[in-house]
């Protein structure tokens, strides 16, 4: 079964900006897909549609559940989104509260919640920080923490919006490893094409709200002419 199936998906912001135009795609279960494109091309908008946070027109199915009012609850359990700005994701006084927020809403038992928090922190390499306040963390640490908040819920589909922006080498590496060893479906957006080379098999190129090309990493990230015409550059790792 496909994790995501979209047909002629459109979305306009309330102020009239047409952020997505006729998006049609399908993403299989377990695939790791990168959405790339210049600033303002609709990547973040697309990600937030995946769990019904924004509702557009057209067909959208998540693991076979058509997106509608009745299914939204189920879909939100299946899809975890890590937003671009970690300050929107961390809203509790301490990391422990933030990470336990999801599992507690899933009505897990207290002992299990503690284990899940522990595990999520270990996965992103923030072990021992559970009692820190999020406003005392650096940007990179907050980014990792917001990934942990979603990881602790074990969603079937994880959507990451610019997971490596503003991160130093070590933190970026941690995220790359985390994506590589994760067996769930992952959809991420990024301007860090080198990271995509290491983590994804498939790339979808957006521009001005439409899909320009959908193909393998080989087909898109190695095609200098295509990238340049969409305001992108060949990944550093492929430049001679």
């Amino acid at each position, binding site marked *: 079964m496909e994790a995501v199936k979209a047909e002629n998906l459109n979305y306009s912001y309330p102020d009239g900006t047409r952020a997505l135009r006729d998006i049609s795609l399908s993403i299989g279960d377990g695939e790791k897909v990168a959405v790339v494109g210049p600033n303002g091309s609709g990547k973040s908008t697309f990600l937030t549609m995946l769990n019904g946070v924004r509702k557009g027109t057209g067909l959208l199915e998540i693991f076979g559940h058509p997106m509608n009012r009745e299914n939204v609850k189920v879909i939100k*359990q299946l899809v975890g989104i890590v937003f671009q700005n970690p300050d929107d994701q961390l809203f509790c*006084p301490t990391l422990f509260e933030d990470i336990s*927020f999801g599992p507690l809403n899933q009505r897990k038992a207290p002992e299990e919640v503690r284990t899940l928090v522990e595990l999520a922190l270990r996965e992103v390499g923030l072990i021992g920080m559970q009692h820190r306040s999020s406003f005392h963390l650096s940007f990179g640490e907050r980014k990792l923490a917001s990934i942990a908040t979603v990881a602790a*819920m074990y969603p079937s589909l994880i959507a990451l919006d610019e997971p490596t922006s503003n991160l130093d080498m070590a933190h970026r590496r941690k995220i790359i490893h985390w994506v590589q060893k994760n067996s769930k479906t992952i959809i991420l957006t990024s301007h860090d094409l080198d990271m995509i080379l290491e983590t994804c098999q498939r790339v979808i190129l957006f521009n001005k709200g439409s899909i320009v090309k959908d193909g393998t990493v080989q087909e898109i990230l190695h095609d200098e002419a295509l990238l340049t015409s969409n305001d992108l550059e060949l990944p550093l790792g492929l430049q001679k």
Partner: protein
Amino acid sequence: MRHEFFDHHREGNSPLHHFDPRLKLFMMLFFIAAVVMTPLDKNILFFLYLGIVLILAFMSQVSLFHFLGKLLKLYPMIFLISMFVPFFPDGEDISHRIGFLSIYENGVQKFLLINIKAVLALFMSILITTTTDMMLLLKGMEKFRVPKLAIAIISFMYRFIFLLIDEVERMMLAFQSRYFRLPVLERLAVFANMIAVLFIRTFERGERIYLAMESRGFRGEVHTLTELNWKKTDSTALLIFLILLIGPVIFAFLNS
């Protein structure tokens, strides 16, 4: 950036730091109630209250100047609220004329009473909040059956006040680095714009946070893992506190 004033919790190892937050909340509420209800003719009791606060301050091992500094920042508010009281007669009052103003004796007494009570209550609140982690205070409140939604609102406030301060500071910085000597009127216009932008940003952030909460399964109920353990020392402290406070109060009232 500048967070110290709100982010006032001081790590510490003093007995006061280790008291159960429920005990501290109770002490604070009880103390404030006692102070507020003390009438003028029992003014001897205020020395007792001051003594209790000072003992607690001493126990906290935080410098008295730290508390006084905070008190000084908050005191002007009380002064502003109460400063006109001496100029209004209270019942049959004796007035004194100073220039074109008349001051009333009962009014002055009332003014002093309000100020003493407010300062004592503030001192106690500062003491408790300085020595207790915000998270623990919230948990204590939860145990006191404060509605969970109210606690959630306070915890959001605590979380996002810093973000708001940072946002204001960034905007001020951006403003100051681009403008250089602007006429007052134009500067006011800029500030008005800033406030509007801040309002919209806050509003939009609120929406994004709600979406983030919803994405993590929030359905309007707040679930938390609460773990507080009431120790023997807490019971002892509670007992001492009650005896210290209630004994003299009863005595004062019996003597009248």
